[in-house]
């Protein structure tokens, strides 16, 4: 066997791998297509306005970690308080901010020192105090700095209601997002957690913390990410949810049952992918306890977030995401190919191992041997074409199919111009953007082996074009009670 044979062999292997991965994606798309079609038809009869005015819907606690958010925290909390839901409270956890986040909240919401006990059932940094608003259903827990996961854990413990919605402080939610995300949990007690779709806010028009019109941004990088998010959320997570293999409920916007979060041990402090790790751990805990359960994804409760618009910041984000993925796979390796964990162990985890974790290495190997093979003349023209079509052609098909699915069922971008742009970016992303991402993810493996635990920073420019939002923030490190309705028993105060 000479060098040419080896190169050819590797190329055949990579070609097979590309065909397999894209085949899997096509299956996921088919499932998502059917699921979203059903969801959209169901939505016509959902009766959300009735649910909004219902006196019988289970109450929700919205947990918002905040670290150095003085410039925007008041607006964010106000927008969370005005979400459409029959009964919800907002629990802000001030994660030892060094700025005036707490003072801003005290002033804006007329907070008083509350004697409300926080039954700390998860491992957290020490608490400094609990404050409540005289006029709003708002609780502010002040604590020492411990990071986002730590702040979320405190918020979960302080939550008074059985359903807990965890979200980032700088996310913008559509008014009925809580109603939509809570619906599967109300519908079935088997649903332990629900993830919602995250969309790209860059370029959209916002006013007073609400979206006025969805638009595509002018810069190319966020446009690539819009297509990427469509693929990941609409075309992929919907299918994983149907297979009950959903392994990520985004930390930016997800709803859980408090009892399950506590039982699973809350968020882990020592990981950079705390959302994926928690989702996987919930699967693991519930499976090990022989609970019949589902983790769902709803393609419609919309949360808007700003995405990186420079390569430098995007690289850091992708590096962190991939380290989070590897960390989760390592921690929960016991679940891999283990029938005890059902579809998660036999389909979900293997998929993430073979295609998400190993994907970058195999893809880079493929590109490298392809170039070498061409130079050495080991690869003939028909094979080169087949390789190109498998590597790029199928990728283009998947990207444009995601845009098609968006337009067919969800129609979030009303302008023709935006649709043209997204279609074009769906094609273009396969010529450079995807390959850069692959490279970053491969580097993330090295970064993981070096035990890098950093989050990196994300410079945000703010949503509201009508207001000055202050200097760019670094939220990555951040982490009124109904008198007549006692909440779930798990929050009972203990006198001792």
């Amino acid at each position, binding site marked *: 066997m000479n060098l040419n044979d080896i190169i050819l062999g590797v190329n055949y292997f990579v070609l097979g791998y590309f065909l397999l991965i894209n085949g899997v994606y096509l299956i996921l798309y088919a499932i998502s297509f059917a699921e979203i079609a059903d969801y959209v*038809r*169901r939505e*016509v*009869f*959902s*009766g959300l306005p*009735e*649910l909004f005015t*219902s*006196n*019988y*819907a*289970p109450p929700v606690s919205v947990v918002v970690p905040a670290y150095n958010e003085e410039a925007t925290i008041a607006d964010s909390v106000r927008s969370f308080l005005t979400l459409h839901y029959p009964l919800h409270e907002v629990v802000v956890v001030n994660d030892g901010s060094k700025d005036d986040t707490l003072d801003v909240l*005290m002033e804006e919401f007329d907070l*008083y*020192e*509350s*004697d*409300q*006990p926080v039954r700390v059932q998860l491992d957290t940094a020490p608490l400094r105090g609990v404050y*409540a608003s*005289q006029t709003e259903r708002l609780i502010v827990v002040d604590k020492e700095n411990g990071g986002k996961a730590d702040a979320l854990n405190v918020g979960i413990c302080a939550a008074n209601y059985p359903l807990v919605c965890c979200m980032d402080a700088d996310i913008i939610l559509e008014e009925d997002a809580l109603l939509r995300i809570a*619906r599967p949990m*109300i*519908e*079935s*007690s088997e649903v332990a957690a629900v993830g919602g779709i995250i969309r790209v806010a860059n370029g959209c028009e916002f006013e007073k913390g609400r979206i006025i019109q969805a638009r595509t941004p002018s810069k190319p990088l966020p446009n690539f990410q819009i297509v990427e998010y469509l693929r990941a959320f609409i075309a992929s997570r919907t299918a994983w949810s149907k297979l009950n293999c959903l392994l990520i409920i985004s930390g930016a916007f997800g709803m859980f049952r408090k009892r399950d979060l506590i039982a699973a041990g809350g968020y882990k402090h020592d990981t950079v992918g705390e959302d994926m790790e928690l989702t996987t751990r919930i699967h693991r805990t519930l499976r090990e306890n022989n609970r019949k359960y589902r983790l769902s994804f709803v393609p419609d409760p919309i949360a808007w977030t700003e995405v990186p618009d420079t390569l430098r910041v995007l690289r850091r984000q992708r590096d962190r995401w991939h380290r989070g993925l590897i960390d989760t796979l390592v921690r929960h390796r016991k679940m891999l190919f283990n029938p005890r964990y059902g579809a998660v162990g036999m389909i979900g985890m293997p998929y993430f191992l073979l295609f998400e974790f190993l994907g970058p290495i195999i893809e880079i190997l493929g590109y490298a041997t392809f170039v070498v093979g061409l130079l050495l003349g080991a690869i003939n023209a028909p094979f080169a074409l087949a390789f190109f*079509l498998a590597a790029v*052609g*199928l990728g*283009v*098909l998947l990207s*444009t*199919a995601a*845009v*098609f699915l968006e*337009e*067919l069922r969800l*129609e979030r971008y009303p302008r*023709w111009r935006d*649709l*043209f742009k997204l*279609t074009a970016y769906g*094609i273009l992303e396969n010529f450079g953007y995807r390959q850069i991402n692959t490279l970053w993810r491969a580097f993330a493996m090295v970064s993981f082996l070096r035990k890098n635990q950093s989050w990196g920073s994300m410079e945000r420019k703010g949503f509201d074009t009508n207001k000055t939002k202050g200097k760019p923030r670094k939220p990555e490190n951040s982490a009124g*009670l109904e*008198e*007549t309705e*006692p*909440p779930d*028993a798990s929050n*009972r*105060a203990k*006198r001792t």
Partner: protein
Amino acid sequence: MMILLNVLMVVLTLGIKGLRSVRQRTTKSRKRRLENALENSIFSDETDPALLKLDGRDLDLLASLMIDYLYVLSGEQHDRLVRLAEEVGLVRRYLEKLRSRGRWRKARAAENLGHFGGPEHIDPLAQLLSHPDETLRAVAARALARIGTPEAARELARQLGDTSELTRLRMAENLERIGASSIEPLAEVLEKARESGEGRLYGPVQAARVLGQLRAAEARPALGHAALFGENVDLRAKAALALGKIGDPDDLPTLFTAAEDEAWPVRAQAASSLGAIGDLAAIPVLRNLTLDREWWVRLNASRSLANMGPEGERALTSLLEDDDRYARDRAVATLEERGITRRVAEELAVPGERGDSARAMIRAMVRAGATRYLGRLANTMSDEDARLALRKILAAETS
């Protein structure tokens, strides 16, 4: 092949948007035409012949238009619209569609029958209440609530024990929407649970909640029994809460007993209800409940006291000197939360008995450790004399 597939996908994406735009335009013009014919028929009392020749999608379009009109019309015009639906064949069309195999056709038919149908359509709609699809059950419940007769309420009440929480809450919502006609079937659910000993099921709990929302005084005996002898904690708690919403002082003895229940949710709801009734005779019981071992009971009891006027406030203020630290903390928090502290602080510079009582209360609050909020008031109150007086007390008591 691959290139063709890609081109096809792009064409499909753009084509869908194009088709949708064209369809929106044609629907708009058809709608305008139908609207004219519909208005002629409503206001002239003679059915426009154009409406009698409609079929398929035009009929559905007409139905959606008529539903819009139903929301804004009342009296004679409303009745005329319902008769018109019968005349143009909408009722027949949706009754037939109710039997179709497609879920969403059934749902559309049920939704529209709720608007145009009458008591004679309760049976076919009630059958959908046990359909495996939750959305279909919800649509049927909504339709029955629109018909709103006691029979419709009875059908909904039967489904209060559904295993899906969403279905239960849909039934409860719609029973509440029906109003007084729901009271009897709901009370029957409670009675039946009492006789059969099925108090652990969801149905009676939801029934108690709806009866409370409806302020159903007729159901007081059944609720009173459930509050004291209900098998499950949730039922006893919801029944106690319902009694508070009804607000009859004759239920005080029942609530006093509920306030001693071994389960804290029942005590917490009893505390709320005693506050809602507002009878001063409840003050000693509420004061006792502020010493409860459970925070939620203390919270509701102290809030109830704060709502009971000067007598309640006095009882709450007296807790500032209590030996129990938890009771003191809760009293302080309630006084701050309800704006009583601010109001009293503004009276600090007032001479005479009012000022004395204000000064005594603020001193007690400082001794109870409530200095942070008072400190803020000392800097923000508009009355300078009151501010100075408050600073003086803070300085004296904390030194």
